[in-house]
Protein backbone atom coordinates (compact mmCIF):
# COMPACT_ATOMS: atom_id res chain seq x y z
CA UNK A 1 0.00 0.00 0.00
CA UNK A 2 1.19 3.46 -0.92
CA UNK A 3 0.85 6.24 1.66
CA UNK A 4 0.42 9.86 0.61
CA UNK A 5 1.35 12.60 3.09
CA UNK A 6 0.50 16.22 2.23
CA UNK A 7 2.81 18.63 4.04
CA UNK A 8 2.84 22.41 4.50
CA UNK A 9 5.51 25.06 4.90
CA UNK A 10 4.55 27.43 7.71
CA UNK A 11 6.10 30.08 9.95
CA UNK A 12 8.06 28.28 12.69
CA UNK A 13 5.89 27.52 15.73
CA UNK A 14 8.14 29.49 18.07
CA UNK A 15 7.98 32.72 16.08
CA UNK A 16 5.41 35.29 17.09
CA UNK A 17 3.98 36.87 13.94
CA UNK A 18 2.93 40.50 13.55
CA UNK A 19 0.18 41.99 11.48
CA UNK A 20 1.29 44.27 8.58
CA UNK A 21 0.71 47.98 9.13
CA UNK A 22 -1.75 48.14 6.20
CA UNK A 23 -3.84 45.32 7.73
CA UNK A 24 -3.74 43.18 4.59
CA UNK A 25 -2.08 40.15 6.14
CA UNK A 26 0.47 39.03 8.69
CA UNK A 27 4.06 39.89 7.89
CA UNK A 28 5.91 36.67 7.07
CA UNK A 29 8.91 38.24 5.29
CA UNK A 30 12.28 37.09 6.68
CA UNK A 31 10.68 34.83 9.30
CA UNK A 32 12.01 31.37 10.03
CA UNK A 33 9.91 28.80 8.17
CA UNK A 34 9.46 25.14 9.01
CA UNK A 35 7.50 21.99 8.32
CA UNK A 36 4.10 22.33 10.05
CA UNK A 37 4.48 20.36 13.34
CA UNK A 38 1.39 18.22 12.67
CA UNK A 39 2.70 17.36 9.19
CA UNK A 40 5.94 16.20 10.80
CA UNK A 41 3.94 13.76 12.92
CA UNK A 42 2.08 12.58 9.80
CA UNK A 43 5.37 11.92 7.96
CA UNK A 44 6.75 10.08 10.99
CA UNK A 45 3.68 7.83 11.16
CA UNK A 46 3.87 7.04 7.44
CA UNK A 47 7.56 6.17 7.74
CA UNK A 48 6.81 3.92 10.74
CA UNK A 49 4.13 2.13 8.69
CA UNK A 50 6.74 1.50 6.02
CA UNK A 51 9.26 0.27 8.57
CA UNK A 52 6.60 -2.09 9.96
CA UNK A 53 5.95 -3.44 6.48
CA UNK A 54 2.37 -2.08 6.23
CA UNK A 55 3.29 0.51 3.61
CA UNK A 56 5.32 0.01 0.45
CA UNK A 57 6.07 3.63 -0.40
CA UNK A 58 5.71 7.03 1.27
CA UNK A 59 5.04 9.96 -1.07
CA UNK A 60 4.99 13.52 0.25
CA UNK A 61 3.27 16.36 -1.57
CA UNK A 62 3.22 20.10 -1.02
CA UNK A 63 1.56 23.02 -2.76
CA UNK A 64 3.15 26.46 -2.96
CA UNK A 65 6.10 28.46 -4.22
CA UNK A 66 9.50 26.95 -5.02
CA UNK A 67 10.45 27.41 -1.36
CA UNK A 68 8.24 24.47 -0.27
CA UNK A 69 10.84 22.13 -1.80
CA UNK A 70 12.91 22.80 1.32
CA UNK A 71 10.17 21.20 3.45
CA UNK A 72 9.74 18.34 0.95
CA UNK A 73 13.48 17.62 1.29
CA UNK A 74 13.07 17.68 5.09
CA UNK A 75 10.23 15.15 4.81
CA UNK A 76 12.41 12.93 2.60
CA UNK A 77 15.27 13.20 5.11
CA UNK A 78 12.81 11.88 7.69
CA UNK A 79 12.20 8.83 5.50
CA UNK A 80 9.70 9.67 2.74
CA UNK A 81 10.65 8.00 -0.55
CA UNK A 82 9.80 10.73 -3.03
CA UNK A 83 8.09 14.08 -3.33
CA UNK A 84 5.67 15.96 -5.54
CA UNK A 85 5.66 19.75 -5.65
CA UNK A 86 2.60 21.47 -7.09
CA UNK A 87 4.01 24.87 -7.90
CA UNK A 88 1.85 27.97 -7.51
CA UNK A 89 2.10 31.51 -6.12
CA UNK A 90 -1.58 31.58 -5.28
CA UNK A 91 -2.88 31.39 -1.72
CA UNK A 92 -5.41 28.58 -1.81
CA UNK A 93 -8.27 27.77 0.55
CA UNK A 94 -8.38 24.22 1.98
CA UNK A 95 -11.12 23.15 -0.47
CA UNK A 96 -8.93 24.03 -3.47
CA UNK A 97 -5.98 22.25 -1.88
CA UNK A 98 -8.18 19.19 -1.29
CA UNK A 99 -9.19 19.19 -4.98
CA UNK A 100 -5.56 19.24 -6.11
CA UNK A 101 -4.69 16.50 -3.62
CA UNK A 102 -7.60 14.40 -4.89
CA UNK A 103 -6.03 14.44 -8.36
CA UNK A 104 -2.70 13.32 -6.87
CA UNK A 105 -4.33 10.62 -4.73
CA UNK A 106 -6.12 9.20 -7.75
CA UNK A 107 -3.01 9.31 -9.92
CA UNK A 108 -0.89 7.63 -7.26
CA UNK A 109 -3.65 5.24 -6.13
CA UNK A 110 -2.63 5.84 -2.51
CA UNK A 111 -4.38 3.51 -0.07
CA UNK A 112 -3.96 5.85 2.87
CA UNK A 113 -3.60 9.61 3.08
CA UNK A 114 -2.17 10.93 6.34
CA UNK A 115 -2.56 14.64 7.14
CA UNK A 116 -1.66 16.83 10.09
CA UNK A 117 -4.89 17.81 11.85
CA UNK A 118 -4.32 21.50 11.13
CA UNK A 119 -1.69 23.94 9.96
CA UNK A 120 -0.53 26.38 12.60
CA UNK A 121 -0.87 29.40 10.29
CA UNK A 122 -4.41 29.15 8.92
CA UNK A 123 -5.69 27.08 11.90
CA UNK A 124 -8.44 25.80 9.59
CA UNK A 125 -8.52 22.09 10.37
CA UNK A 126 -10.37 21.28 7.12
CA UNK A 127 -8.19 19.84 4.35
CA UNK A 128 -8.11 16.17 5.40
CA UNK A 129 -11.86 16.01 5.96
CA UNK A 130 -12.44 17.74 2.61
CA UNK A 131 -10.26 15.30 0.68
CA UNK A 132 -12.09 12.40 2.33
CA UNK A 133 -15.41 13.92 1.25
CA UNK A 134 -14.31 14.54 -2.35
CA UNK A 135 -12.84 11.03 -2.65
CA UNK A 136 -15.83 9.40 -0.93
CA UNK A 137 -13.45 7.85 1.58
CA UNK A 138 -14.01 7.29 5.29
CA UNK A 139 -12.06 9.56 7.63
CA UNK A 140 -10.55 9.48 11.09
CA UNK A 141 -9.50 12.85 12.45
CA UNK A 142 -7.31 13.73 15.47
CA UNK A 143 -5.68 10.29 15.58
CA UNK A 144 -3.59 9.38 18.62
CA UNK A 145 -3.16 5.74 17.59
CA UNK A 146 -3.22 4.11 14.17
CA UNK A 147 -3.23 0.40 13.35
CA UNK A 148 -3.33 -1.03 9.85
CA UNK A 149 -4.27 -4.64 9.32
CA UNK A 150 -5.06 -6.19 5.95
CA UNK A 151 -7.51 -3.79 4.38
CA UNK A 152 -8.63 -1.91 7.47
CA UNK A 153 -7.47 1.00 9.60
CA UNK A 154 -8.29 1.09 13.31
CA UNK A 155 -7.86 4.55 14.72
CA UNK A 156 -8.08 5.95 18.23
CA UNK A 157 -9.15 9.58 18.13
CA UNK A 158 -8.80 12.39 20.64
CA UNK A 159 -12.31 13.73 21.15
CA UNK A 160 -13.84 16.15 23.67
CA UNK A 161 -14.14 14.20 26.88
CA UNK A 162 -11.72 11.37 26.08
CA UNK A 163 -10.80 8.88 23.39
CA UNK A 164 -12.85 7.14 20.71
CA UNK A 165 -11.84 4.18 18.57
CA UNK A 166 -13.13 3.66 15.03
CA UNK A 167 -12.43 1.13 12.33
CA UNK A 168 -12.76 1.67 8.59
CA UNK A 169 -11.88 0.06 5.28
CA UNK A 170 -9.00 1.44 3.18
CA UNK A 171 -8.55 3.67 1.28
CA UNK A 172 -9.10 6.21 4.02
CA UNK A 173 -7.96 9.60 5.27
CA UNK A 174 -6.40 9.97 8.70
CA UNK A 175 -5.49 13.31 10.30
CA UNK A 176 -3.04 13.15 13.17
CA UNK A 177 -2.96 14.75 16.59
CA UNK A 178 0.04 15.71 18.69
CA UNK A 179 0.27 12.58 20.76
CA UNK A 180 0.34 10.08 17.90
CA UNK A 181 4.12 9.87 17.94
CA UNK A 182 7.39 11.67 18.61
CA UNK A 183 8.89 12.65 15.22
CA UNK A 184 12.54 11.68 14.73
CA UNK A 185 15.30 14.11 13.84
CA UNK A 186 16.81 13.95 10.39
CA UNK A 187 20.40 12.69 10.56
CA UNK A 188 23.08 14.32 8.42
CA UNK A 189 23.56 11.25 6.15
CA UNK A 190 19.78 11.13 5.65
CA UNK A 191 19.71 14.84 4.79
CA UNK A 192 22.39 14.17 2.17
CA UNK A 193 20.51 11.14 0.82
CA UNK A 194 17.30 13.15 0.63
CA UNK A 195 18.94 15.48 -1.88
CA UNK A 196 19.12 12.62 -4.36
CA UNK A 197 15.57 11.37 -3.85
CA UNK A 198 13.12 12.16 -6.69
CA UNK A 199 11.17 15.41 -6.49
CA UNK A 200 8.64 16.01 -9.30
CA UNK A 201 7.56 19.55 -9.96
CA UNK A 202 4.16 19.98 -11.61
CA UNK A 203 1.79 22.87 -12.13
CA UNK A 204 -1.88 23.15 -11.26
CA UNK A 205 -2.65 23.06 -14.99
CA UNK A 206 -0.98 19.64 -15.27
CA UNK A 207 -3.61 18.26 -12.92
CA UNK A 208 -6.51 19.64 -14.95
CA UNK A 209 -8.39 20.76 -11.84
CA UNK A 210 -10.54 23.86 -12.11
CA UNK A 211 -10.62 26.01 -9.00
CA UNK A 212 -12.83 28.93 -8.09
CA UNK A 213 -12.66 31.85 -5.70
CA UNK A 214 -14.49 31.07 -2.48
CA UNK A 215 -13.66 33.84 -0.07
CA UNK A 216 -12.01 37.20 0.33
CA UNK A 217 -9.95 38.28 3.29
CA UNK A 218 -11.12 41.87 3.86
CA UNK A 219 -8.58 42.68 6.55
CA UNK A 220 -6.24 41.20 9.11
CA UNK A 221 -5.96 42.98 12.45
CA UNK A 222 -4.03 42.40 15.64
CA UNK A 223 -6.09 41.05 18.56
CA UNK A 224 -7.04 43.60 21.20
CA UNK A 225 -4.32 44.06 23.79
CA UNK A 226 -5.08 43.15 27.38
CA UNK A 227 -4.57 46.03 29.77
CA UNK A 228 -1.45 45.73 31.85
CA UNK A 229 -1.86 43.70 35.02
CA UNK A 230 -0.36 44.13 38.44
CA UNK A 231 1.87 41.97 40.62
CA UNK A 232 0.54 41.19 44.07
CA UNK A 233 2.83 40.54 47.02
CA UNK A 234 0.94 37.79 48.83
CA UNK A 235 -1.82 35.22 48.65
CA UNK A 236 -3.93 37.41 50.99
CA UNK A 237 -3.62 40.38 48.65
CA UNK A 238 -4.52 38.18 45.68
CA UNK A 239 -7.74 36.98 47.32
CA UNK A 240 -8.57 40.54 48.38
CA UNK A 241 -8.15 41.81 44.79
CA UNK A 242 -10.18 38.97 43.30
CA UNK A 243 -13.00 39.61 45.76
CA UNK A 244 -13.20 43.39 45.82
CA UNK A 245 -11.60 44.62 42.59
CA UNK A 246 -12.25 41.90 40.00
CA UNK A 247 -15.28 40.50 41.85
CA UNK A 248 -14.83 37.04 40.33
CA UNK A 249 -14.86 34.96 43.52
Amino acid at each position, binding site marked *: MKVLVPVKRVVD*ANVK*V*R*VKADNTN*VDTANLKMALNPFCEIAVEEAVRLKEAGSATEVVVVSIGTKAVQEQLRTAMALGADRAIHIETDEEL*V*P*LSIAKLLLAIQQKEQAGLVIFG*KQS*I*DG*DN*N*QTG*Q*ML*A*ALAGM*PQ*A*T*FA*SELKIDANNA*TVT*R*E*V*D*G*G*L*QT*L*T*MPLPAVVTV*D*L*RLNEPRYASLPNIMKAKRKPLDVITMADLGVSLK*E*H*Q*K*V*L*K*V*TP*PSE*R*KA*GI*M*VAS*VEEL*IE*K*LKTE*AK*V*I
Partner: protein
Amino acid sequence: MAILVLAEHDNTHLKLDTAKVVSAAKAIGTEIHLLVAGFECAEVVTFAKALDGVSKVLVADAAVYQAQLAENLAALVLTLADDYEHILSAASSVGKDTLPRIAALLDVSQISEVVAVVSNDTFVRPIYAGNALATVQSLDSKKVMTVRSSAFDVAASSGNADVVTLTQVIEAKTAFVSQELTVSARPELGSAGIIVSGGRGMGSSENFALLETLADKLGAAVGASRAAVDAGFVPNDLQVGQTGKIVAPDLYIAVGISGAIQHLAGMKDSKVIVAINKDPEAPIFQVADYGLEADLFEAVPALSNLL
Protein backbone atom coordinates in the same frame (compact mmCIF):
# COMPACT_ATOMS: atom_id res chain seq x y z
CA MET B 1 -33.18 31.52 3.97
CA ALA B 2 -33.00 29.56 7.19
CA ILE B 3 -29.95 28.65 9.26
CA LEU B 4 -29.17 25.05 10.22
CA VAL B 5 -27.32 24.41 13.49
CA LEU B 6 -25.88 20.98 14.18
CA ALA B 7 -26.63 20.11 17.82
CA GLU B 8 -23.80 18.85 20.01
CA HIS B 9 -24.86 16.14 22.44
CA ASP B 10 -24.01 12.77 23.97
CA ASN B 11 -27.45 11.23 23.28
CA THR B 12 -28.63 12.33 26.76
CA HIS B 13 -27.55 15.94 27.31
CA LEU B 14 -27.45 18.84 24.92
CA LYS B 15 -24.03 20.51 25.28
CA LEU B 16 -23.94 24.15 26.33
CA ASP B 17 -21.88 24.81 23.19
CA THR B 18 -25.02 24.42 21.10
CA ALA B 19 -26.79 27.20 23.03
CA LYS B 20 -23.82 29.43 22.23
CA VAL B 21 -23.86 28.53 18.53
CA VAL B 22 -27.57 29.47 18.52
CA SER B 23 -26.52 32.93 19.76
CA ALA B 24 -24.08 33.22 16.87
CA ALA B 25 -26.86 32.11 14.49
CA LYS B 26 -29.17 34.80 15.89
CA ALA B 27 -26.59 37.40 14.86
CA ILE B 28 -26.94 36.15 11.26
CA GLY B 29 -30.69 35.70 10.87
CA THR B 30 -33.90 34.78 12.57
CA GLU B 31 -35.09 31.44 11.27
CA ILE B 32 -32.96 28.89 13.07
CA HIS B 33 -33.40 25.12 12.79
CA LEU B 34 -31.53 22.67 14.98
CA LEU B 35 -30.53 19.21 13.78
CA VAL B 36 -30.32 16.54 16.47
CA ALA B 37 -28.81 13.37 15.00
CA GLY B 38 -28.25 10.56 17.47
CA PHE B 39 -29.70 7.40 18.95
CA GLU B 40 -32.41 7.29 21.63
CA CYS B 41 -31.88 11.00 22.07
CA ALA B 42 -35.41 12.09 23.07
CA GLU B 43 -34.03 13.82 26.17
CA VAL B 44 -31.74 15.95 24.00
CA VAL B 45 -34.72 17.00 21.91
CA THR B 46 -36.53 18.23 25.06
CA PHE B 47 -33.64 20.60 25.80
CA ALA B 48 -33.15 21.52 22.15
CA LYS B 49 -36.73 22.65 21.50
CA ALA B 50 -36.59 25.00 24.48
CA LEU B 51 -33.69 27.04 23.10
CA ASP B 52 -34.71 30.64 22.41
CA GLY B 53 -34.56 31.56 18.75
CA VAL B 54 -34.89 28.01 17.45
CA SER B 55 -38.10 27.56 15.45
CA LYS B 56 -37.72 23.94 14.39
CA VAL B 57 -35.87 20.90 15.70
CA LEU B 58 -35.11 18.21 13.12
CA VAL B 59 -34.60 14.82 14.74
CA ALA B 60 -32.77 11.91 13.12
CA ASP B 61 -32.92 9.12 15.68
CA ALA B 62 -31.26 5.89 14.50
CA ALA B 63 -28.52 3.54 15.68
CA VAL B 64 -26.25 4.59 12.80
CA TYR B 65 -26.01 8.11 14.26
CA GLN B 66 -25.14 7.02 17.80
CA ALA B 67 -21.42 7.83 17.60
CA GLN B 68 -22.02 10.93 15.43
CA LEU B 69 -19.55 9.92 12.74
CA ALA B 70 -18.61 12.55 10.20
CA GLU B 71 -19.19 10.21 7.29
CA ASN B 72 -22.93 9.66 7.53
CA LEU B 73 -23.70 12.84 9.50
CA ALA B 74 -22.31 14.86 6.57
CA ALA B 75 -24.34 12.79 4.11
CA LEU B 76 -27.47 13.40 6.20
CA VAL B 77 -26.92 17.17 6.27
CA LEU B 78 -26.38 17.10 2.50
CA THR B 79 -29.94 15.78 2.04
CA LEU B 80 -31.25 18.84 3.94
CA ALA B 81 -28.86 21.48 2.61
CA ASP B 82 -31.12 22.84 -0.19
CA ASP B 83 -33.23 24.66 2.39
CA TYR B 84 -30.38 26.45 4.13
CA GLU B 85 -27.99 29.27 3.36
CA HIS B 86 -25.96 28.88 6.57
CA ILE B 87 -24.84 25.64 8.24
CA LEU B 88 -23.24 26.05 11.65
CA SER B 89 -21.82 23.97 14.43
CA ALA B 90 -19.58 24.46 17.43
CA ALA B 91 -15.85 24.11 16.81
CA SER B 92 -15.93 20.98 18.97
CA SER B 93 -14.44 17.62 18.03
CA VAL B 94 -17.69 16.57 16.28
CA GLY B 95 -18.09 19.93 14.52
CA LYS B 96 -14.49 20.12 13.36
CA ASP B 97 -14.72 16.54 12.10
CA THR B 98 -18.02 16.90 10.24
CA LEU B 99 -18.42 20.43 8.87
CA PRO B 100 -15.46 20.43 6.45
CA ARG B 101 -16.86 17.21 5.02
CA ILE B 102 -20.23 18.90 4.52
CA ALA B 103 -18.58 21.98 2.97
CA ALA B 104 -16.60 19.90 0.46
CA LEU B 105 -19.69 17.91 -0.53
CA LEU B 106 -21.46 21.23 -1.19
CA ASP B 107 -18.37 22.55 -3.03
CA VAL B 108 -18.10 25.56 -0.72
CA SER B 109 -15.29 26.82 1.46
CA GLN B 110 -15.62 26.61 5.24
CA ILE B 111 -14.92 29.36 7.74
CA SER B 112 -13.47 27.85 10.93
CA GLU B 113 -13.73 29.05 14.55
CA VAL B 114 -15.80 32.19 13.93
CA VAL B 115 -15.51 34.62 16.87
CA ALA B 116 -17.69 37.45 15.52
CA VAL B 117 -20.45 37.93 12.95
CA VAL B 118 -20.03 41.13 10.88
CA SER B 119 -22.87 40.48 8.41
CA ASN B 120 -24.56 37.43 6.94
CA ASP B 121 -21.58 36.72 4.70
CA THR B 122 -18.69 38.28 6.64
CA PHE B 123 -17.12 36.81 9.74
CA VAL B 124 -14.09 37.28 11.98
CA ARG B 125 -11.79 34.39 12.85
CA PRO B 126 -8.42 34.04 14.56
CA ILE B 127 -5.35 32.85 12.64
CA TYR B 128 -1.75 32.13 13.69
CA ALA B 129 -2.73 30.81 17.15
CA GLY B 130 -4.81 33.91 17.84
CA ASN B 131 -2.01 36.35 17.04
CA ALA B 132 -4.13 37.90 14.29
CA LEU B 133 -7.82 38.23 13.46
CA ALA B 134 -8.95 37.83 9.85
CA THR B 135 -12.19 39.36 8.60
CA VAL B 136 -13.36 37.02 5.87
CA GLN B 137 -16.14 37.47 3.34
CA SER B 138 -17.64 34.30 1.92
CA LEU B 139 -18.36 34.38 -1.83
CA ASP B 140 -20.10 31.00 -1.74
CA SER B 141 -23.86 30.58 -2.03
CA LYS B 142 -23.86 28.56 1.19
CA LYS B 143 -21.88 29.45 4.27
CA VAL B 144 -20.56 26.53 6.26
CA MET B 145 -18.87 27.54 9.49
CA THR B 146 -17.76 26.36 12.89
CA VAL B 147 -18.22 28.75 15.81
CA ARG B 148 -15.80 29.26 18.67
CA SER B 149 -18.34 28.89 21.44
CA SER B 150 -16.28 30.78 24.04
CA ALA B 151 -16.89 33.94 21.97
CA PHE B 152 -20.70 33.84 22.27
CA ASP B 153 -23.24 33.88 25.13
CA VAL B 154 -25.59 31.05 25.95
CA ALA B 155 -29.06 31.44 24.38
CA ALA B 156 -31.84 31.30 26.99
CA SER B 157 -34.15 28.29 27.15
CA SER B 158 -37.71 29.48 27.33
CA GLY B 159 -38.76 28.67 23.77
CA ASN B 160 -40.86 25.87 22.38
CA ALA B 161 -39.89 24.86 18.86
CA ASP B 162 -41.70 22.43 16.55
CA VAL B 163 -40.21 18.96 16.30
CA VAL B 164 -39.87 17.30 12.89
CA THR B 165 -38.81 13.67 12.58
CA LEU B 166 -36.40 12.78 9.77
CA THR B 167 -36.52 9.31 8.28
CA GLN B 168 -33.24 9.27 6.33
CA VAL B 169 -31.02 6.48 7.65
CA ILE B 170 -27.60 6.66 6.06
CA GLU B 171 -25.03 3.93 6.71
CA ALA B 172 -21.32 4.67 7.09
CA LYS B 173 -18.28 2.63 6.08
CA THR B 174 -16.72 3.72 9.35
CA ALA B 175 -17.62 1.60 12.38
CA PHE B 176 -17.56 2.65 16.01
CA VAL B 177 -15.45 0.32 18.18
CA SER B 178 -15.24 1.82 21.65
CA GLN B 179 -14.78 4.95 23.69
CA GLU B 180 -13.02 5.84 26.86
CA LEU B 181 -14.34 8.97 28.54
CA THR B 182 -12.66 10.78 31.37
CA VAL B 183 -14.97 10.85 34.38
CA SER B 184 -15.05 14.04 36.40
CA ALA B 185 -17.40 15.47 38.99
CA ARG B 186 -16.15 19.00 38.30
CA PRO B 187 -17.68 21.34 35.73
CA GLU B 188 -16.71 20.86 32.09
CA LEU B 189 -13.75 22.93 30.90
CA GLY B 190 -15.65 24.48 28.03
CA SER B 191 -18.45 25.87 30.20
CA ALA B 192 -16.78 26.47 33.60
CA GLY B 193 -16.90 29.98 35.06
CA ILE B 194 -13.58 29.43 36.81
CA ILE B 195 -10.66 27.29 35.62
CA VAL B 196 -7.59 26.33 37.62
CA SER B 197 -4.84 25.15 35.27
CA GLY B 198 -1.50 23.51 35.95
CA GLY B 199 1.65 23.26 33.88
CA ARG B 200 4.99 21.53 33.93
CA GLY B 201 5.74 23.36 37.18
CA MET B 202 3.33 21.02 38.98
CA GLY B 203 6.08 18.42 38.80
CA SER B 204 3.95 15.28 39.00
CA SER B 205 0.54 13.78 38.59
CA GLU B 206 0.09 13.55 42.39
CA ASN B 207 0.72 17.27 42.82
CA PHE B 208 -2.33 18.01 40.68
CA ALA B 209 -4.31 17.11 43.83
CA LEU B 210 -3.33 20.58 45.12
CA LEU B 211 -5.12 22.15 42.16
CA GLU B 212 -8.11 19.83 42.58
CA THR B 213 -8.51 20.98 46.20
CA LEU B 214 -8.38 24.60 45.07
CA ALA B 215 -10.77 23.88 42.18
CA ASP B 216 -13.29 22.26 44.54
CA LYS B 217 -13.19 25.30 46.86
CA LEU B 218 -13.93 27.57 43.88
CA GLY B 219 -16.36 25.26 42.07
CA ALA B 220 -13.88 25.38 39.21
CA ALA B 221 -12.79 23.06 36.40
CA VAL B 222 -9.22 21.79 36.23
CA GLY B 223 -7.19 22.40 33.07
CA ALA B 224 -3.60 21.86 32.01
CA SER B 225 -0.96 23.08 29.61
CA ARG B 226 0.39 20.86 26.86
CA ALA B 227 3.60 20.38 28.84
CA ALA B 228 1.63 18.88 31.75
CA VAL B 229 -0.28 16.58 29.39
CA ASP B 230 2.83 15.47 27.51
CA ALA B 231 4.56 14.75 30.83
CA GLY B 232 1.64 12.43 31.60
CA PHE B 233 0.43 14.38 34.67
CA VAL B 234 -3.18 14.55 33.40
CA PRO B 235 -5.23 13.16 30.48
CA ASN B 236 -5.13 15.12 27.24
CA ASP B 237 -8.76 16.26 27.26
CA LEU B 238 -7.78 18.71 30.03
CA GLN B 239 -5.42 20.51 27.68
CA VAL B 240 -6.08 24.20 27.17
CA GLY B 241 -4.46 25.71 24.09
CA GLN B 242 -4.40 26.04 20.34
CA THR B 243 -4.34 22.26 19.96
CA GLY B 244 -6.60 21.56 22.94
CA LYS B 245 -9.63 23.41 24.26
CA ILE B 246 -10.20 27.12 23.77
CA VAL B 247 -11.73 28.58 26.93
CA ALA B 248 -12.85 32.00 28.12
CA PRO B 249 -13.98 31.73 31.76
CA ASP B 250 -14.53 34.66 34.14
CA LEU B 251 -11.43 33.64 36.07
CA TYR B 252 -8.45 31.63 34.81
CA ILE B 253 -5.77 30.71 37.34
CA ALA B 254 -2.54 29.55 35.66
CA VAL B 255 -0.27 27.70 38.07
CA GLY B 256 3.25 26.72 37.07
CA ILE B 257 2.52 27.57 33.43
CA SER B 258 5.13 29.61 31.57
CA GLY B 259 2.71 30.91 28.95
CA ALA B 260 3.83 29.61 25.55
CA ILE B 261 2.03 31.06 22.49
CA GLN B 262 0.19 27.79 22.00
CA HIS B 263 -1.23 27.90 25.55
CA LEU B 264 -2.12 31.62 25.44
CA ALA B 265 -4.13 30.99 22.25
CA GLY B 266 -6.44 28.83 24.32
CA MET B 267 -7.11 31.14 27.28
CA LYS B 268 -6.21 34.74 26.60
CA ASP B 269 -9.83 35.79 26.17
CA SER B 270 -10.57 34.90 29.79
CA LYS B 271 -12.04 37.86 31.72
CA VAL B 272 -9.55 37.81 34.58
CA ILE B 273 -6.25 35.93 34.42
CA VAL B 274 -4.21 35.11 37.52
CA ALA B 275 -0.70 33.71 37.19
CA ILE B 276 1.21 31.99 39.98
CA ASN B 277 4.79 31.29 38.96
CA LYS B 278 8.17 31.42 40.63
CA ASP B 279 9.85 32.77 37.48
CA PRO B 280 9.24 36.54 37.33
CA GLU B 281 10.24 36.50 33.63
CA ALA B 282 7.57 33.94 32.62
CA PRO B 283 5.58 35.28 29.61
CA ILE B 284 2.32 34.38 31.40
CA PHE B 285 2.77 37.52 33.56
CA GLN B 286 2.39 39.67 30.41
CA VAL B 287 -1.24 38.61 29.99
CA ALA B 288 -2.09 38.18 33.69
CA ASP B 289 -4.28 40.75 35.42
CA TYR B 290 -2.89 39.62 38.75
CA GLY B 291 0.49 38.01 39.04
CA LEU B 292 1.96 36.35 42.11
CA GLU B 293 5.64 35.47 42.05
CA ALA B 294 5.73 32.55 44.46
CA ASP B 295 6.41 28.86 44.88
CA LEU B 296 3.17 27.16 43.89
CA PHE B 297 3.64 24.48 46.55
CA GLU B 298 3.22 27.18 49.21
CA ALA B 299 0.88 29.56 47.41
CA VAL B 300 -1.74 27.06 46.23
CA PRO B 301 -2.38 25.39 49.64
CA ALA B 302 -2.42 28.85 51.26
CA LEU B 303 -4.98 29.99 48.69
CA SER B 304 -7.16 26.92 49.33
CA ASN B 305 -6.99 27.49 53.09
CA LEU B 306 -8.01 31.12 52.88
CA LEU B 307 -11.03 30.55 50.63
